């Protein structure tokens, strides 16, 4: 069979989705695909563009990857633009002189920012916000600027304002309409949004009609408004809407809309059936869709059409939920109540800054639209009511009025009420029916369903709904979803963590009497001991805590197979003085301990008897050492290379940073042990990428990798963010560790935690960098508390006679355990086996 020549013009988010869907369909081999990408890089995420100024790089934003495209067999031409289409001969011509024949052509040329044609709009330092090149221009321009103005108070304009603010400029938003986000919000919602944004230090000017832009007196520009007022600024960013890029179509005679846009039918075909158009350049039913989800749907429709399917584009819901500068904003359906007879319910909480409105039908039975500002937890439920025409409860206002108690006051929409056709994930077009199919085919968990259907892996807005739905369905099928940690507590680890934090519980006893039953066990006791230590960092051998600890924590050493212990002093960053080495050597020799260098760049001393631990530690502490927490589910080591101080290739002081980090986080208890690595250059001698937290020096700062692991199932850390200064790096690590401590499961390393984290790396970035959960201040202060409360547990123990009593082998005798027997091997001791014990002469201990 002859392959069809398929030419795709444009590689933005929608263009990329088209290729992805074609690859997913398994029909790629039917086509010779050529992709023209006019920008100097493949598709990237424009939705999160502003994160470029809060740490994300072009690589972080990238969606299309050349290796992947090549593996699909695509011919990709980067930096090459199609300049004309000859429909008679079915050929495209490019700016580099290429001419190419097509059987089918897909136009995914996107849009360009609309710049109002006011005099002076083309002055220097007047910019737009659309591409990474635009961002670089903004960055360059901002470097000499104090003030920035964004023209346009819509969704994109506010995103752009965040970008300007992140660059450190005094930020203004100028909007022509009388309120912000006039398309999505009403007056009440717009007012609240304005107040919240102004609280963040962004000045908002609404109802402003810019007349001209001229030279300023105190700043580069002066903007003059129709009402006579003026505003001086160094930088102007236009973000006043988009216009479809329809030139190619227009010039080759395809039908375009009166106000622009390539006209398409339900098959996404243009007026020439061989040519399709998708995304923001396409005009369907007189409408341009400026959101990514409808573009994705169009992309899938065209793939279906090309491989003989019947899927059609029948419009899209324009409901949105987003976080603007940390503020929740959502708008659903007919938010303004344009439908005849529509009625509103409004809830306006000025104290807490929450505004909610629902628009219901004349009969009060149907939800037509909604607006949420300040808190948008109800979005998923309201959207399902609106999309599926589900009958509203008798008092619809209960949907938005806070529920102040009352067990049966549950107003959330039961997932069982949704029809099978209900769209759960609009980004990836996944219906309730598709999710049930996935469970039917064997998916056992939310993660399975996500992997199978891609649901909730786009914007993540449907996460909660998906989880509820999957758990509901699993329960219906009799699959027990038990997350209790043990028979004594009907809670998850995170539940207990939150209870301990909120109720400020300080002991296991009080937690058990208030929230548990029985006596506890070897599962919940160390778990609660660890949680209490993570939260309050009290001395672990205090009377209420001592019975909770595993033997390693109890004796602050690691029990070996014969009941003896190993001892590991802390060696921060692996840096150790000759005197300290000698001191360790002397202790090893005096107590006849087996010594071995560990993987974490320190020295382990084996074969210490219980009663020897205090004297061993006294000698180590006198030599200036402190406990290494090798026994705890806590920070272990920060491995490092020597870095730029000595190494010819090093670009920064990795050893210095490693020591600082190890001293900062030592003693921090967590769901499991935590290891760090810091490398001074990309040669990566410290193997940082195999650590929970890995840091690698670059010419411009530090790259941060998270959630790597050695051990049984090795995992490379994910590159979280690049080129950080030290202060920001430490802030992110504080947040990361505390977020892991808060949400990790018992004995879950960060690698597994990350793999089960809904939304994965992107979600973690949102939490840690964008403060998506508004949690960072709390996490940082919690970390500060743990750091302040640090003390060397061994030092404390040596000064505590009661605690020391515990280190007696026998409470009523000075004798030693005669079952501990050593054999000499390679010049050191090792435990005797059972046969050897029966014949061997015990080695005399020196103490």
């Amino acid at each position, binding site marked *: 069979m002859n392959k069809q020549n398929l030419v795709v013009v444009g590689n933005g988010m929608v263009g990329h989705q088209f290729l992805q869907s074609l690859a997913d369909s398994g029909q790629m081999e039917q086509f010779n695909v050529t992709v023209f990408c006019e920008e100097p890089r493949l598709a990237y995420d424009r939705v999160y563009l502003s994160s470029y100024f809060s740490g994300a790089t072009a690589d972080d934003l990238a969606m299309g990857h050349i290796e992947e495209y090549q593996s699909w067999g695509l011919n990709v031409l980067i930096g090459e633009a199609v300049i004309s289409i000859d429909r008679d001969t079915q050929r495209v011509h490019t700016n580099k002189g290429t001419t190419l024949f097509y059987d089918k052509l897909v136009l995914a040329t996107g849009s360009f920012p609309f710049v109002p044609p006011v005099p002076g709009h083309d002055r220097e330092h007047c910019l737009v916000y659309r591409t990474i090149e635009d961002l670089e221009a903004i960055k360059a321009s901002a470097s000499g600027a104090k003030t920035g103005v964004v023209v346009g108070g819509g969704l994109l304009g506010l995103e752009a304002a965040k970008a300007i603010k992140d660059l450190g400029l005094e930020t203004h938003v100028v909007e022509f309409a009388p309120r912000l986000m006039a398309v999505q919000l009403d007056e009440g919602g717009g007012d609240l949004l304005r107040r919240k944004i102004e609280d963040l230090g962004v000045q908002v000017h609404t109802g402003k009609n810019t007349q001209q832009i001229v030279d300023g007196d105190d700043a580069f520009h002066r903007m003059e408004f129709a009402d006579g007022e003026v505003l001086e600024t160094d930088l102007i960013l236009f973000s006043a809407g988009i216009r479809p890029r329809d030139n190619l179509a227009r010039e080759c005679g395809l039908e375009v809309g009166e106000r622009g846009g390539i006209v398409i039918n339900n098959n996404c075909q243009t007026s020439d059936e061989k040519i399709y158009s998708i995304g923001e350049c396409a005009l369907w039913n007189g409408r341009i869709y400026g959101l990514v989800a409808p573009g994705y749907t169009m992309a899938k429709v065209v793939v279906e059409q090309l491989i003989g399917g019947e899927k059609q584009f029948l419009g899209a819901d324009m409901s949105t939920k987003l976080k603007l500068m940390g503020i929740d904003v959502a708008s659903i359906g007919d938010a303004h109540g344009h439908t005849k007879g529509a009625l509103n319910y409004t809830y306006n909480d000025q104290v807490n800054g929450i505004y909610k409105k629902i628009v219901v039908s004349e009969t009060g039975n149907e939800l037509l639209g909604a607006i949420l500002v300040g808190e948008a937890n109800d979005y998923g439920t309201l959207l399902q009511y609106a999309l599926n025409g589900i009958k509203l409860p008798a008092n619809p206002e209960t949907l938005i009025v806070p529920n102040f108690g009352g067990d049966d006051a549950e107003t959330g929409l039961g997932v069982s009420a949704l029809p099978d056709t209900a769209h759960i994930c609009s980004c990836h077009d996944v219906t309730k029916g598709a999710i049930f199919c996935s469970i039917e085919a064997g998916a056992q968990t939310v993660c399975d369903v996500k992997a199978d259907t891609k649901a909730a892996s786009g914007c993540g807005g449907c996460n909660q709904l998906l989880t509820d739905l999957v758990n509901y369905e699993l329960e219906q099928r009799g699959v027990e979803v038990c997350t209790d940690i043990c028979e004594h507590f009907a809670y998850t680890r995170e539940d207990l963590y939150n209870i301990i934090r909120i109720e400020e519980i300080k002991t296991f006893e009080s937690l058990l009497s208030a929230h548990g039953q029985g006596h506890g066990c070897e599962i919940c006791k160390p778990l609660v001991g660890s949680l209490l230590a993570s939260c309050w960092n009290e001395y672990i051998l205090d009377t209420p805590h001592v019975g909770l600890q595993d033997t390693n924590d*109890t004796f602050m050493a690691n029990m070996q197979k014969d009941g003896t212990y190993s001892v590991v002093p802390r060696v921060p960053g692996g840096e150790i003085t000759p005197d300290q080495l000698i001191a360790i050597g002397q202790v090893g020799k005096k107590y006849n301990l087996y010594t071995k260098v560990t993987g974490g760049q320190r020295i382990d001393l084996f074969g210490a008897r219980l009663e020897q631990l205090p004297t061993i530690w006294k000698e180590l502490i006198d030599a200036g050492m402190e406990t290494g927490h090798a026994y705890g589910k806590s920070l272990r080591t920060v491995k490092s290379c020597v870095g730029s101080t000595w190494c010819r290739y090093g670009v920064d002081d990795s050893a210095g940073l490693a020591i600082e980090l190890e001293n900062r986080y030592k003693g921090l208890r967590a769901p499991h042990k935590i290891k760090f690595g810091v490398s001074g250059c990309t040669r990566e001698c410290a193997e940082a990428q195999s650590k929970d937290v890995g840091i690698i020096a670059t010419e411009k700062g530090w790259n941060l990798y998270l959630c790597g692991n050695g051990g049984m199932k090795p995992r490379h850390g994910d590159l979280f963010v690049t080129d950080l200064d030290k202060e920001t790096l430490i802030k992110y690590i504080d947040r990361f560790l505390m977020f892991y401590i808060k949400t990790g499961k018992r004995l879950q390393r960060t690698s597994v935690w990350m793999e089960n984290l809904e939304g994965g790396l992107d979600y973690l970035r949102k939490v840690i960098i964008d403060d998506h959960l508004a949690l960072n201040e709390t996490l940082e202060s919690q970390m500060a508390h743990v750091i302040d409360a640090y003390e060397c547990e061994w030092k404390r123990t040596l000064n505590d006679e009661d605690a020391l009593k515990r280190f007696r*082998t026998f*409470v009523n005798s000075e004798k030693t355990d005669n079952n501990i027997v050593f054999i000499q091997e390679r010049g050191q001791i090792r435990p005797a086996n059972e046969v050897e014990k029966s014949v061997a002469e015990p080695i005399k201990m020196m103490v």
Partner: protein
Amino acid sequence: MTTTNEWLDLCSINDLVANSGVCALLKEEQVALFYLPNEQKVFAVGQYDPFGNANVMSRGIIGSKQGQLFVASPLYKQHFLLEDGSCLEDAAISLPVWKTQIINERVMINTA
């Protein structure tokens, strides 16, 4: 009282650690002692871990399973009931147990 069934003074109640264990010598035998102040009870079981072949039982965590008190081996986590020493994982194995009582803050153990 006979010589094989006598009450011996083992140690002071202050030698014990509440809700946890310590070890005492009963003649040449190692005994793990667990003190539960809420129950005002001291349990005595063998210190030797028959799975790990080491004298470590007093360093295990105590807990309950469906109301029955146990100690979990610190080496390989098998559960032994404090009441009768039986192992929940292996019915063929058990720890020796002794009767105890507290008299005038002294821990008395029955040698039978």
